[in-house]
């Protein structure tokens, strides 16, 4: 079993994610430059947080046209697990692999703080080991995290059980319906604004994010 962490120009949570994969959940993982990524060599892929291409035009849009995304789309088709964290979530949305848009935070400030989330579904490749309705703590660090969909799409997300995490006890960025993370209809692609890789060891203040990576391993077994 091998997991790829894709590195875009501007990624800065790539090494944290790699550390958690290799040293905390102990799975074989490679850090791959986005132009060199080949999906056939991997069982799962993670698009890490940070920035990509200076977030010009819109966060994630230029990376959405990276050659890596052609391979990611192939993995998605094959039902392999793909996780997008923060900028990775923005890339998945801009690639149309997940529905919606991520707009500038309603308070117009970059937010870097701990948040409490509620697990809305454990029927996904990255949440299957959580309890339904469980609350977890993970930090956020973003400027464009206000998830937006129109009313009809929001209804569809709920109908299809695609809302994965919602902010609980305070919505930091004005996201519609307090949505922090969603999945695709096939449940193998998950994107979220909070950073599970920064909450995978007790020394960092929370281990709640680790189950996302463990869920991925469990999904692959």
């Amino acid at each position, binding site marked *: 079993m091998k997991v790829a962490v894709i590195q875009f120009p501007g990624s800065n949570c790539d090494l944290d994610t790699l550390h958690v994969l290799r040293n905390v959940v102990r799975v074989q993982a490679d850090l791959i430059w986005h132009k060199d990524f080949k999906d056939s060599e991997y069982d799962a892929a993670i698009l890490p947080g940070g920035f990509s291409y200076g977030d010009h*035009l*819109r966060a994630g*849009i230029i990376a*959405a*046209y990276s050659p890596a995304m052609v391979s990611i789309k192939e993995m998605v088709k094959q039902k392999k697990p793909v996780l997008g964290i923060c900028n990775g979530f923005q890339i998945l*949305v*801009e690639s*149309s692999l997940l*529905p*919606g*848009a991520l*707009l*500038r*935070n*309603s*308070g*117009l400030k970059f937010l870097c703080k701990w948040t409490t989330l509620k697990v809305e579904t454990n029927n996904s490749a990255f949440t299957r080991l959580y309890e339904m309705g469980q609350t977890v703590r993970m930090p956020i660090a973003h400027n464009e995290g206000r998830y*937006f*969909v*129109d*009313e009809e*799409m929001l209804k569809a997300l709920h109908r299809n059980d695609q809302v994965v995490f919602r902010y609980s006890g305070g919505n930091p960025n*004005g996201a519609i319906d307090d949505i922090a993370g969603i999945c695709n209809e096939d449940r193998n692609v998950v994107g979220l604004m909070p950073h599970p890789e920064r909450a995978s060891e007790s020394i960092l203040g929370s281990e709640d994010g680790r189950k996302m990576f463990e869920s991925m391993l469990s999904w692959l077994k």
Partner: protein
Amino acid sequence: MNPSKEFVVKIVYMVEIVIGNKPQAKDPEGETIMKDLMHKSGYDCVKEVRTGKLLRVQIEATTEEEARQKVFAMCNDLRIFNPVAHSCKIEIRGKT
């Protein structure tokens, strides 16, 4: 040589692409500019401010209509705007 090609004149058009949030997506930057700058400075007459992004593009085409169509196709093809949250207006601003 195709004789008709000799007479094709390519013109460079100036095109403006204006991207903004759809009405149902809040625009906190516009609200702050209106409430905390304009209204506080006495410009109560301002009823709404919506911010956006402007891309001024110079594009080669044979006619104005072709320039507009090329930009329209490009904006959709490359998702220059996110159709879920944004509106996109294309305006020809003359020739260079």
